[in-house]
């Protein structure tokens, strides 16, 4: 398990180093089902209840 976690951390860093943003979809409490994303900048910031992290390219002016 420790090896797996280390692999996850390394992969997380690699994605961010490759220029990706990372975020976790969440549901805001008391919002009547409204969902939003929470940006994650460090592996330790991932909420414990998160089931996945979504990586997507950084925004740039079009």
């Amino acid at each position: 398990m420790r090896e797996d976690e280390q692999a996850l951390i390394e992969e997380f860093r690699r994605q961010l180093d490759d220029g990706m943003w990372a975020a976790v979809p969440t549901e805001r409490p008391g919002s009547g089902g409204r969902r939003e994303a929470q940006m994650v900048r460090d592996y330790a910031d991932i909420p414990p209840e998160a089931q996945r992290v979504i990586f997507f390219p950084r925004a740039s002016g079009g």
Partner: protein
Amino acid sequence: MLALLTTGLMATLLAAFLLGSPTLARFKGRRKRHAEGAPHAFDPGRERRAEQRARQLLRSCVNDVEWAMYRDLGFIRVDGRPLPDSPGDEDAPAPYAYLIYPHKPIVAYVPESGRLLSEYCVEFPDLTGGGRTRLPASDDVLAKWMALTSDEARVIGRANMHLVGRQHDPGHVRRDIWRLSEWERLGAGDTGARAA
């Protein structure tokens, strides 16, 4: 594969962290193949499958109403943050909102009046290679949704702002706002989301 699929892979990885290592090994294998792979020729089937996966991912992230909105109207509305000097009423209508279109600028407008404010040109280039330079349509929408709902100031700060009309037809956008209001008035967001 496209960048946002990496997200799905990361989701798999996190699950693998909980469930064990086989998925992790599979991920490493896919990444190695991707790194070694030659550039792909355009493949309509692959593009269609990528869009289908993107739609599934989008659907799993947004709520039922937003999904039904995208499915029925082709765009998603995201409310803007309450203004700093406004009272902290969570139920108050948003002072402004965004319309997220695939591969088109984000449009800001005032829901109460329908007044168009500006369009924000922003791109999320596909960084994964494979001959594709832009994300599947639904991945583009998801990237905008994630960026806007998580860090609105950052994505807007990176965008190029113009008056509506540079890439969007203002008449078309006004018609979309009217379509959205009719869609909501008829309760399509409620019934449609359940039927989806």
